[in-house]
């Protein structure tokens, strides 16, 4: 899959778009919150619309905002966390594992 490339059109934020994004983030918004978020997100996207109006043809696209690159770790094992200590903090450990409610999809 590849990312969409039409960066020049600023999408319009509607209450439906906000509701969908809220669902993806598992946020349970009230009608009032939905209206508020719609107004606020519209303001933010308008700002990006302003940036899009500038002539940026001479500016090199930036993949990363940080001036440093290539921070590596060597491939050496360092002891991690103790299982018992970790599971003692979990709500429902079982058989050395984390017991969780069922989910309805899987990835990878």
């Amino acid at each position, binding site marked *: 899959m590849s990312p969409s490339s039409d960066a020049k059109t600023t999408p319009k934020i509607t209450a439906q778009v906000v509701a969908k994004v809220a669902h993806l983030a598992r946020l349970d918004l009230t009608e009032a919150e939905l209206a508020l978020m719609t107004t606020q997100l519209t303001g933010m996207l308008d700002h990006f619309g302003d940036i899009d109006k500038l002539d940026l043809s001479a500016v090199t696209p930036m993949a990363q905002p940080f001036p440093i690159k290539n921070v590596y770790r060597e*491939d050496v094992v360092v002891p991690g966390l103790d299982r018992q200590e970790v599971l003692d903090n979990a709500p429902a450990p079982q058989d050395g594992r984390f017991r969780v409610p069922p989910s309805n999809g899987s990835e990878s």
Partner: protein
Amino acid sequence: MSNASSAPSHATVLPNGWEMVIGLEVHVELDTKTKLFSASPNHFGDEPNTNIDPVTLGLPGALPVINRRAVELAIRLGLALNCTVQASTFHRKNYFYQDLAKAYQITQYDQPINIDGYMMLPGDVRIGIERAHLEEDTGKSTHFGGTSGRIHGSDYSLVDFNRAGVPLVEIVSRPDIRNADQARQYVSELRSILLAVGASDAKMEEGSMRCDVNVSVRKADEPFGTRCEIKNVNSIRAVGKAIDYEARRQVDVLESGGTIRQETRHWDDSEGRTHTLRVKEDADDYRYFLEPDLVLLDPGTEWVESIRASLPMLPAARRARLAQLTGADKESEAVYVIVERGQDDFVQLVADAGGEPARALVYVQQAFAEAGANPSVPAKDLAALTLLERDAKVTATQAKTILAEIVANGGGDAVAIAAAKGFEALDTSAVEAMVDAAIAAQPDAWAKYCAGEEKAMGAMVGAIMKSSQGKADGKVVTAILQAKRG
């Protein structure tokens, strides 16, 4: 194992006029000591949740730092797949599922480390490789309760995070594959390449190599149809079976007036069919965004070129070299098998010791299936045997017996063994006399053979071999019989 020599099965799978379009997404776990972004062990089969740390568990404040060796192995693989290696970035792929504690997977999105490669399959078929990018593996959830032990209808899941954060490369082919045979060849060749460059142990049975198969069908020369993605395809054999099943299913749906919807399907190997797992979410639903905790990964020309210089000769080049040496077809089963076992250097040693290369190839294939890359038999002993057989001093059957004895004893003088066993191939005039005697003894069989009944020859050859006590060469006997028939 290669399927290069197996008969194509695709011709009969789809009705006339239909074509399969297949793309593969293969995940491989890299053979590192530690995880992609943290220092816990990358080790299969340990007690659950013993290889965990704050990064693996997504604890607040934990920060990922990339494993240099994982990057190096990804580049080795990319170069072996003829990719361009480029500066790359990481993104967060956001979704809610228990196998990732952070609620996102760190992966590469619009700037992957390896792009635009290809792999060659038998028959000079070129399969494009869109990308081979780095990402972290997920944890493992096991579902309990309900009726099936599968996720739907289960009551709860138990999660083990040992695998979470293990370095993966996802190799995405272009939709250039046109039948199940090619798909199997692609996976088989990819596995050989992974082993050759040391990027992964590529064990499908342990999940260190996993295939997702994208299948669609179309009428020849029409645009691509809607594709379905098949998961849980856990062996090379299953790759072929799943593709043939799914393509046939799609054609049946389309021919009965239905439509294919884009979805993810699950391959059930015991039932031999696919089931709907879920309707595909849009790519945008993952809300990819740049991982703010990682910086640009730019390996640079110098490092990439030093990795390229350190690559071993790849399987395709080794097969070509072996084929050149022995005169065998580079797509023959013998050539694939010997290179797969890493015994092509041993065949070369036999040739260097004065042996006849074509027979050396046959002997090594026959005798050293379990021997590994370096059979513990002197190459010169095999070389001597190839010459005995080439010069018709012993028959092919006798050579096989001598070979077995040499292998059993870890070496031996072929000439001495032949003498001890009384193996002396008869000279042609003696064989001719035996053939004449057999014709006289079996006039009926000879008449039938002369009348074109090829089966009758078998009985005559058998009788001659018997009277020669196995010393006559079956090929010579056959040739004399054919010559006498005229």
